[in-house]
């Protein structure tokens, strides 16, 4: 340590004190630091139950840490592999799916709940019936919204769930469905504890189920301070090999520079959505991870409210946006320009689509056709306040779009709230237009169209355009029902063309997901569908 650095005596003295005190037990401190990982995340979770949300921030913080699902995706080829269900069986007509559960799965043992039994069929049934049954005692707890399941019309897919024995359950489906198994492997289909729910019901404090969570995941909940941090401890009796670290901390740092500063000052081990990639790359003690993500950033119009209930205005705005400028100024060239909702690296659908190219003249023409005088229209652009993989800086993007719109005589205000508030207001449809995006939950085009633009998603709020088009919904339904991949492709092609015509939203970019960490952290797995796995992380 250096002593001759400051003229301020007080610093010297305090530092001396620090050095003296920290000198007592340096080896122990080192141990504690090594056993803990601090992950600087970009926002507060909305809830501790992934069933009730769609935001990636919440998924990152909860889904993989606290819970398990029946199935999961293989990280290499995205095929389905067993998780809590050790195997499963589908009848030939595709309407009955039977799951055989593992018998060694322990729930978290915490200050507020001590499990007396291992995971069994009751827990699985509780977890899904909470979503499916309107009159289930827990259905309305935390607002009664299950956006992912509502978007997929889960309630109409599953007829009932049957308990065969303590470790065997059977889902009776209304018909064969291609997406059903995949949806059970997504981050949202987590398994909760029925025993805990019963205990809470006795204390009539049902709302605690999503505030003080109990799951089977590798980490258990210890403490959460809203807007500040989440503290998780290792789940000692985890059914797979327990996590290598003892403590996992989510340091909630919405400020981009704040996160990078903490990383540079070694106050964070891992940072979500880093900015200034160059600085990190050049830094000797830091490294930058990236993974191809199935995502899209888009500019969505609230089609239920003027002026964007008018298709001509939507088209005009779409023509006015200079996407190339956005690629440079927001993504620094590290993203693909979007031609449709689907990332071209995953599916090659868009070749024949009539693209909307940047054209101010065309935009002005359309505005005139819509009968809007230049300068007479003022709109709100909602820009999300956090970084996501698909959009590292929505506010800057909003500023660029603001300038673009100025060119065609539309004035605009940029609106932003704290993330949780932003999402809440957005779901209520308070916006006129919004810059946001979507990360797929599994590798299927349907997971772009259905959650973003279907009528059911317009009701649940993930359809930010609040756009409901029967022709479009029919195309999606046909695509899911057909077994020919050729046929399916044709349906989706039509869906893309319909979007390009109606412009409920303007797709902007597909980007990789980045994560920065100090080089001493090893073994981190980023998931292409969002979520982070901390079980194999070590630090030296």
């Amino acid at each position, binding site marked *: 340590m*250096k002593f001759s*650095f400051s003229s*301020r*005596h*007080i*610093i010297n003295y*305090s*530092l001396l*004190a*620090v050095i003296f*005190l*920290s000198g*007592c*037990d340096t080896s*122990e*401190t080192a141990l*504690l*630091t090594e056993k*803990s990982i*601090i992950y600087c995340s970009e926002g507060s979770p909305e809830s501790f139950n992934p069933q009730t949300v769609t935001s990636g921030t919440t998924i990152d913080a909860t889904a993989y840490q606290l819970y398990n699902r029946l199935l999961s995706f293989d990280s290499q080829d995205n095929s389905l592999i067993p998780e809590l269900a050790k195997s499963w069986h589908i009848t030939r007509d595709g309407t009955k799916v039977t799951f055989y559960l593992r018998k060694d799965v322990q729930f978290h043992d915490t200050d507020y709940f001590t499990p007396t039994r291992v995971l069994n069929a009751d827990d699985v049934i509780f977890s899904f019936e909470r979503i499916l049954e309107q009159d289930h005692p827990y259905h309305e707890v935390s607002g009664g919204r299950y956006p992912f399941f509502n978007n997929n019309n889960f309630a109409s897919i599953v007829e009932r769930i049957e308990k065969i024995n303590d470790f065997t359950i059977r889902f009776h489906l209304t018909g064969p469905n291609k997406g059903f198994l995949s949806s059970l492997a997504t981050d949202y289909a987590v398994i909760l504890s029925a025993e805990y729910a019963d205990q809470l019901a006795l204390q009539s404090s049902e709302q605690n189920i999503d505030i003080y969570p109990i799951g089977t995941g590798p980490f258990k909940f*210890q*403490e959460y*301070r*809203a*807007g*500040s*941090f989440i*503290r998780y401890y290792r789940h000692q009796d985890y059914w797979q090999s327990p996590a290598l670290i003892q*403590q996992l*901390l989510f*340091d909630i*740092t919405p*400020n981009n520079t*704040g996160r990078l*500063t*903490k990383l*540079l*000052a*070694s*106050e964070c081990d891992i940072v979500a959505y880093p900015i200034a990639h160059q600085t990190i790359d050049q830094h000797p003690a830091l490294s930058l991870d990236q993974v191809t993500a199935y995502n899209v950033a888009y500019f969505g119009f609230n089609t239920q409210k003027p002026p964007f209930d008018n298709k001509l205005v939507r088209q005009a705005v779409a023509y006015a946006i200079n996407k190339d400028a956005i690629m440079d100024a927001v993504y620094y060239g590290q993203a693909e320009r979007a031609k449709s909702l689907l990332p071209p690296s995953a599916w090659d659908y868009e070749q024949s689509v009539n693209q909307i190219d940047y054209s101010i003249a065309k935009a002005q023409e359309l505005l005139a056709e819509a009968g809007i005088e230049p300068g007479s229209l003022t709109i709100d652009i909602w820009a999300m306040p956090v970084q996501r993989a698909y959009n590292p800086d929505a506010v800057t993007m909003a500023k660029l779009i603001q300038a673009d719109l100025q060119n065609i005589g539309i004035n605009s205000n940029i609106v932003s*709230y*704290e993330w*949780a*508030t932003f999402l809440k207001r957005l779901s209520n449809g308070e916006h006129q237009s919004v810059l946001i995006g979507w990360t797929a939950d599994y590798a299927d085009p349907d997971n772009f169209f259905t959650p973003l633009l279907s009528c059911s998603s317009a009701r649940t709020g993930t359809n930010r355009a609040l756009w409901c088009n029967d022709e479009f919904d029919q195309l999606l339904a046909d695509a899911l029902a057909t077994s020919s991949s050729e046929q399916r492709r044709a349906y989706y092609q039509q869906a893309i063309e319909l979007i390009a015509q109606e412009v409920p939203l303007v797709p902007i970019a597909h980007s990789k997901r980045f994560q920065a960490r100090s080089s001493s952290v090893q073994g981190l797995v980023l998931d292409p569908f969002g979520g982070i796995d901390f079980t194999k992380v070590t630090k030296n």
Partner: protein
Amino acid sequence: MLLFFVRRLSLFLFTMLLLTWFAFSLAHLFPGDPLINLTGQVNANPEQLIALGQQYHTEDHMIFQYFSYLEHIISGDLGLSMASQLPIASELANLLPATIELSIVALAIAMITGVPIGFVAAIYHKRKVDDVILTFSMIGYSIPIFWLGLLAVLIFSIELGWLPSAGQLSLIYEIDHVTGFLIIDILLSDNTYKWQAFADATAHIILPACVVALAPATIFIRLARTTMLEILETSYIKAAKAKGLSFRQIIYRHAVRNAMIQVVRHVGLQFASLMTLAMVTEVIFSWPGIGRWLIDSIYQRDYTAIQNGLLVLSIFIFIVHIITDLTYAGLNPLARERSYGS
């Protein structure tokens, strides 16, 4: 002294009345239903709202509404935060101590550095040292604090890596909330890593406290300098000189003591501006204090939090003000004579 005390007490009551009335009227000035603004019950159903309305006498005259509000405040019910739906009283109980802690440390730094430097400047009046000190204090007084904070982080946390850049304590230490004052809580805790946590907390507070302290320190410099200059001109110092006391004795025995009384008088006023500086600094250093919380509440239009947060903050500032006033009066009998209205 008693009269002085009574006069201050009346001022205190007058101010409390003014402040609570102000906070109460805010609920009506803010957009939305005043009842919801007061209570923060955004998710309440109509029946609950009716019950709340009865509690707060919304049907009655404004005065009754005000008194029922006052009743709630005094019983410690500050409503719920509209954004997080947590009770504001408990949020403040967590946040206010952090801000106080930062302010007190900063105040200590400002006084310990500012006052002696000011004395030195006065002793070397009209010489190089005085000029240099005055120039620096002028620059220190002019620097925008948020910019200073950023530069401090860049230099001390990132380039040199000496001090942490954000927060109150590294998250790896788990300290139970007892008093809300982190340093005290650490000392009270039975954590195995207690002393490391203490060292870590000390390291965390240095940078923000120094940033907050800079501007008040320059004010203390000026104050101490002016007071000392005045005192050196007084007849009792001249008398002491005539008695043959050495310069050192004069300074230590007479001048410093009398100058300190004047400085104490300004601590109250300084504390208020210090709290404001601390609020801005909290944003930069992610300090979990009331300033960051209040500014977030303004962004989120969390009216209940704004209104009651401000109320508690200003009451606190005013109490400090009164306490220093009384201390000063205790130290300096001359101050008790001042009165208004003549």
